[in-house]
């Protein structure tokens, strides 16, 4: 018996990267912007989208891909508002894989769309490391979660092209240190825009929709 060392150098994101590239290529060909919303369970991603529908519809032709571990509830909420929406059920997986997103993406009427918003599975870790061929990742964080989340999950905030701080109407009732949170975000990703919104009282929603449309080439 003798020992041998075999150099391999094989990328372990291999299979996912192939599907992500397929999405990216098709997306660019069709001129579609894809935004990947990532945040904790309960940070208000679906509510934010519900309140975005009216003002975004006037500016962009868009569809939503809803990620969920087990249910179709979020898609039903948006469907009621007349949004073109598909539910992606991961059956237990903690993030959307590019393969699953691709399946839903190619089923959309791509020639009639400017934008696809993906609401990822509620999770600050796994979706951050998963390329789904998106234009940009957007981090969503609610004031109810505490200001330490960016420092605890730096990858997401480093990769994101924008941060939305939601539920600002709750600020008087929770001990959320906005200054410390903004400072940590700046440390991790100094050039990133931060938008503070309350889907409940509507504050910051104009800035949020402006941020979304800033990625799109097709302005209506």
């Amino acid at each position, binding site marked *: 018996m003798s*020992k041998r*060392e075999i150099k*391999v150098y094989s990328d*372990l994101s291999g299979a996912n990267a192939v599907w992500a590239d397929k999405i990216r290529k098709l997306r660019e060909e069709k001129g579609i912007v894809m935004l990947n919303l990532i945040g904790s369970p309960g940070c208000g991603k679906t509510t934010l989208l519900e309140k975005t529908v009216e003002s975004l519809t006037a500016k962009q032709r868009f569809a939503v891909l809803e990620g969920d571990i087990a249910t179709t509830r979020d898609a039903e909420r948006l469907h009621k508002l007349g949004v073109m929406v598909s539910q992606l059920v991961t059956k237990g997986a903690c993030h959307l894989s590019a393969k699953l997103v691709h399946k839903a993406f190619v089923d959309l009427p791509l020639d009639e769309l400017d934008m696809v918003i993906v609401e990822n599975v509620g999770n600050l*870790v796994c979706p951050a490391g998963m390329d789904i061929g998106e234009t940009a990742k957007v981090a969503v964080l609610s004031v109810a979660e505490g200001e330490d989340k960016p420092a605890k999950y730096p990858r997401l905030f480093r990769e994101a092209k924008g941060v939305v701080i939601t539920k600002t109407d709750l600020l008087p009732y929770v001990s959320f240190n906005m200054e410390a949170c903004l400072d940590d975000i700046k*440390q991790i990703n*100094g*050039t990133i825009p931060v938008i503070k919104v309350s889907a409940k009282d509507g504050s910051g929603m104009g800035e949020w929709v402006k941020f979304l449309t800033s990625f799109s080439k097709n302005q209506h």
Partner: protein
Amino acid sequence: MHEFGIAQELVKTVLAELKKLDDSAKLTCVKVVIGKLQEIVPENLTFAYESLTEDTRIKGSKLEIVDIPVTVKCNACGWEGEVVGIAFLCGKCESHDVRVVKGMELYLDKLEVEVDE
């Protein structure tokens, strides 16, 4: 638990590599290189690897994980250095305009096998 998906890809890759060798080749160690920004918990990856290899010819092989710290390069002055804590900024001119040059690695580096002479 994104470690499980990564372990699946790893086991698939390792088994494919072993097929290229003689049947008597026994895998002793697998070395993977993982950047800190991948936010991988080594214990979880090891657990997933051990579970997934249970009924395969590579059962009992050791998984060695090499951890790569996060390094950034300043777009303004060219300084390059390790990120301390969460401070993704230049250690010289303090600019926030930096790019990550190390810490995103995720690859199978090498295999150690025992072969009959």
